[in-house]
């Protein structure tokens, strides 16, 4: 059963008063995401990643085409809360998505909105904080936390809703390497232990290589949709689409071009090191 089904979606932002209608930002996007997947979405600036993400929980609705979340059409306004409860969204700047002045109150926010009884909120908040490893900070003020910790609080605020899927729009872009590692570890654990589907929009190739599947967007269209090793073997095409490839892939690519015999699907550092060691004899 697909959690998310995007069918031939076209979307253009409404034109500012009287100006020419904007060119569509999404142009015929189709993608299906099954339960439990970990999908990374790549694409250069302005390729429409955030716009696509906002279609997945009915913040935006398609101009043409349909988006189905567990079979619910996002255009159906009466099901708005049902959709948002199923697909949670985390944004880039952790400062701008924390509402309350105490960590645990913030994690409780979505549940309070959904009208969950107090005792149940308490239980789920404690659980969510535990899942992201932030139980110790339950009573802290958010502005005293590090970027990675704030982002984990934001994630806790989403998973407290027990969504089937979390969509994260560049959640690590403002974090230092340690914060990034914390967030990635948390996401992988949620995906593996709780079976939560993760859609991760990112500019970091090393994060994309950890996903089970990579979707590459280019000017409002899907350029590739395949496992990382396959996607990253298209070094030239990705570079043309304004994207980096992981350093390991780049190294193997350059070596191959120089006439060495290397496989095309190497992305992990271990595989790369092994392959190079073999070349050296």
């Amino acid at each position, binding site marked *: 059963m697909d959690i998310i089904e995007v069918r031939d979606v076209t979307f253009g932002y409404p034109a500012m008063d009287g100006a020419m209608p904007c060119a569509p930002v999404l142009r015929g996007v189709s993608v299906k995401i099954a339960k439990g997947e970990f999908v990374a979405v790549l694409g250069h600036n302005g390729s429409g990643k955030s716009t696509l993400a906002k279609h997945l929980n009915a913040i935006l609705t398609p101009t043409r085409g349909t988006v189905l979340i567990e079979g619910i059409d996002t255009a159906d306004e009466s099901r708005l809360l049902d959709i948002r*409860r199923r697909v*949670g969204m985390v944004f880039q700047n952790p400062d701008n998505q924390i509402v*309350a002045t105490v960590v645990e109150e913030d994690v409780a*926010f979505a*549940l*309070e909105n959904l009208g969950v009884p*107090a005792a149940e*909120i308490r239980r789920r908040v404690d659980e969510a904080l535990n899942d992201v490893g932030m139980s110790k900070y339950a009573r802290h003020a958010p502005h005293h936390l590090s970027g990675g910790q704030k982002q984990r609080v934001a994630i806790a605020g989403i998973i407290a*809703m027990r969504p089937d899927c979390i969509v994260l729009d560049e959640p690590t872009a403002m974090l230092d390497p340690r914060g990034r590692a914390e967030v990635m570890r948390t996401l992988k654990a949620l995906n593996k232990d709780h079976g939560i589907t993760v859609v991760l929009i990112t500019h970091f190739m090393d994060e994309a290589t950890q996903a089970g599947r990579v979707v590459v967007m280019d000017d409002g269209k899907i350029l590739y949709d395949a496992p990382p090793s396959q996607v990253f073997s298209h070094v030239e095409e990705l570079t043309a689409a304004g994207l980096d490839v992981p350093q390991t892939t780049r190294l193997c690519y350059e070596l191959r071009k120089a006439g060495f015999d290397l496989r095309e699907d190497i992305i992990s550092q271990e595989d790369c090191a092994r392959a190079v060691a073999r070349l050296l004899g």
Partner: protein
Amino acid sequence: MFRDISIGQYFPGESSVHRMDPRMKLILTFSYVVMLFIAFSGPSLLVGALFVIIAYRVAGIPVRLILRGIKPIIPIVIITGILNMFFVEGKAIFSFWVFSVSAEGVRMAVLMALRILCLIAGTALMTYTTSPIALTDGIELLFAPLGRLGAPVHEIAMMMTITLRFIPTLIEETDKIMSAQKARGGDLESGNFLQRVRALIPILIPLFVSAFRRAEELALAMECRCYHGGEGRTRMRILKFSSADVYSALFMAGCVAAVVALNRLGAALWAL
């Protein structure tokens, strides 16, 4: 430069005043203000003063903090005192030119000063012993009946929470912008008043732009977390009245009764 602004003036503690239900504290503070205004004799105002001193004691808040709260309003107290002294009619005890000071006027001046001091001390005690979040919760619950009549009670409480949440963030941002402008040679500290006001513009504009961007992102994040106003909303923390709340309410009722009784007595004594 902005780091040391303290938000609100909450002094965390474990006293029974701290642990009281914020709703009860709001009610009692309001009753206290009313009590001060119905107290018009010396002895009854002394009851008011005694009440606030006892409350500070129980709360474990040093009484010298009263002075800190009072300092900014001393000029107001003095001016009202002087006005009272000169303009209240009565037996003149001292006069020059067209002015005369009456005994009644002096009495009024003293009572009014005492009343204002108690007022400030009493309301300050509430903010000293109640965290801003608890206060917001208390206000929202206490005024919930008004919400049913259409007043935007939930919205106001939400705005208060968000304001409290973003004050530290915006202060930090102001600091950053000021450093950035200084690094570009911006001079914020010298020059006359007008020049310094003008130097603030390059700080305020980026601050506003960023505050609007933050507001937009926050609204989006709140929508994603199923926020749809106060309707059907529950709360994780449920406020409950405890025995301390009951006792303090009884104590307050006793003080009000004493004030009413002493008003009569004081008036009778004054008439003698």
